[in-house]
């Protein structure tokens, strides 16, 4: 008997139960090898198999097993264009916040600048603070400010420092490393500037989205910024969400708290986020578009389960398009989204999504 399932690019595919199990095992083995982490148990594999091989359109967790649902990207999921998976529906930020709170079951929500990066918020910080004050007066659910640290904006041609990738192709490795270190310091200063002001405006906290997107220096700069925020605002809610399952080693040697961050996997990343002062860690595992949902889910759950096991703080798994086993497609099929979500709750035991 063949089951209706998906590939990592969202295409429909039929697989037998045996093929699904084989792919879950292969995905698991890939994660275990890459991360140097334990395999899933036979019980875990059986649960994921049943979830993937279910004939129902949607699956769900049992009543009483619900988890926290944290939304990122703010109003952009409505207002954005398809470049950032929005719907292209223009609306105000207050309306978007209250819609998420009252109609979409958001347990938390956030305010965001349309560029969604820290750097462009600096020149408009007063406007962002006013909007934060206004929405805090209306909203009940925890309301963050969210942005990507996006260290890429500090490198040429957007910023004052040389572009490490370009410098390295010219074998100027020391110069590339120095540029990355300078950019990391700069993004940390900007994080402190922006985040502390938004907390002063009443934000419950800050969501650092796609930490490490520009590599290990981006990650270190962000963690240093998180530490500054925690020292300045001891009561702030801080979510540190990652960009990928592994921190890209663009610098290679840059450290946070004596630990080289390049090549760290979720179960190692979470420990640095804890040290920096995060309240919640957003773990990521990337989807391979050429593999099946079963393969991607086996792999993602293996990474995230170990992260949850080693975390002292709550872990919310990132489950947008192309992460957490979910297909890389602007309109991810709901059968796939639902299956990935259930597997993360029941096998990886995440605290939230």
């Amino acid at each position, binding site marked *: 008997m063949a089951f209706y399932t998906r590939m990592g690019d969202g295409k429909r595919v039929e697989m037998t139960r045996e093929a699904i199990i084989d792919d879950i095992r292969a995905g698991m083995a890939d994660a275990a090898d890459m991360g140097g982490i334990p395999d899933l148990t036979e019980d875990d594999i059986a649960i994921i198999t049943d979830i993937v091989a279910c004939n129902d359109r*949607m699956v*769900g967790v049992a*009543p*009483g*097993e*619900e*988890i*926290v*649902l944290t*939304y990122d990207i703010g109003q952009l*999921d409505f207002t954005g264009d398809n470049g950032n*998976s929005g719907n292209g529906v223009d609306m105000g930020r207050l309306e978007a916040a209250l819609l*998420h*709170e*009252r*109609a*979409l*079951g*958001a*347990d*938390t929500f956030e305010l965001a600048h349309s560029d969604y990066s820290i750097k462009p918020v600096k020149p408009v910080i007063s406007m962002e603070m006013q909007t934060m004050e206004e929405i*805090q*007066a*209306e*909203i*009940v*659910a*925890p*309301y963050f400010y969210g942005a990507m640290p996006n260290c890429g904006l500090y490198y040429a041609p957007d910023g004052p420092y040389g572009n490490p990738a370009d410098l390295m192709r010219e074998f100027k490795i020391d110069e590339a490393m120095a540029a990355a270190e300078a950019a990391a310091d700069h993004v940390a200063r900007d994080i402190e500037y922006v985040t502390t002001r938004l*907390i002063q*405006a*009443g*934000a*419950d*906290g800050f969501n650092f989205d796609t930490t490490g997107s520009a590599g290990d220096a981006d990650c270190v700069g962000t963690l240093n910024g998180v530490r500054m925020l*925690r020292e300045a605002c*001891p*009561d*702030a*809610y*801080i*979510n540190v969400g990652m960009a990928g399952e592994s921190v890209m080693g663009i610098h290679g040697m840059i450290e946070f708290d004596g630990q080289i961050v390049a090549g760290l996997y979720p179960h190692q990343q979470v420990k640095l986020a804890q040290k920096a*002062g995060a*309240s*919640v860690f957003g773990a990521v595992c990337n989807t391979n578009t050429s593999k099946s949902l079963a393969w991607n889910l086996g792999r993602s759950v293996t990474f995230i389960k170990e992260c949850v096991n080693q975390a*002292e*703080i*709550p872990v919310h798994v990132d*489950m*947008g398009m192309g992460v957490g086993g979910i297909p890389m497609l602007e309109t991810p099929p*709901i059968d796939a*989204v*639902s299956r990935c*979500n*259930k597997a993360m*709750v029941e096998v990886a035991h*995440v*605290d*939230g*999504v």
Partner: protein
Amino acid sequence: MDLPHFLTSGMGGIRTAGDLVARMEYDPKHKMHIKDAKAYVAKKLGVSVLDIADESVMRDLREELGIGVCTGVPGAPRGIAAKMNIEKLLDIEINSCKIFREKTQKN
């Protein structure tokens, strides 16, 4: 994307008690994992863990406690007012409420 997640495993936000559980996970003095956070909220509300994600229980309970509801109820506390009631209920401090108090108690 939002809706399948909500329907599969979401607590339900202010439809139920999802916002309260989220606060107990994020509050840096607590940083509770999901099971502890749910148990804490259930105890403070005086209901079971099953009840805190059940709309039939939480809809009326939220209105009674003045902690914000997802339907339009004229006169019911919302925004800062609802959050001040949440502070007392959960024994936590909420930043926007703290700032509101600072501003209103200047003189």
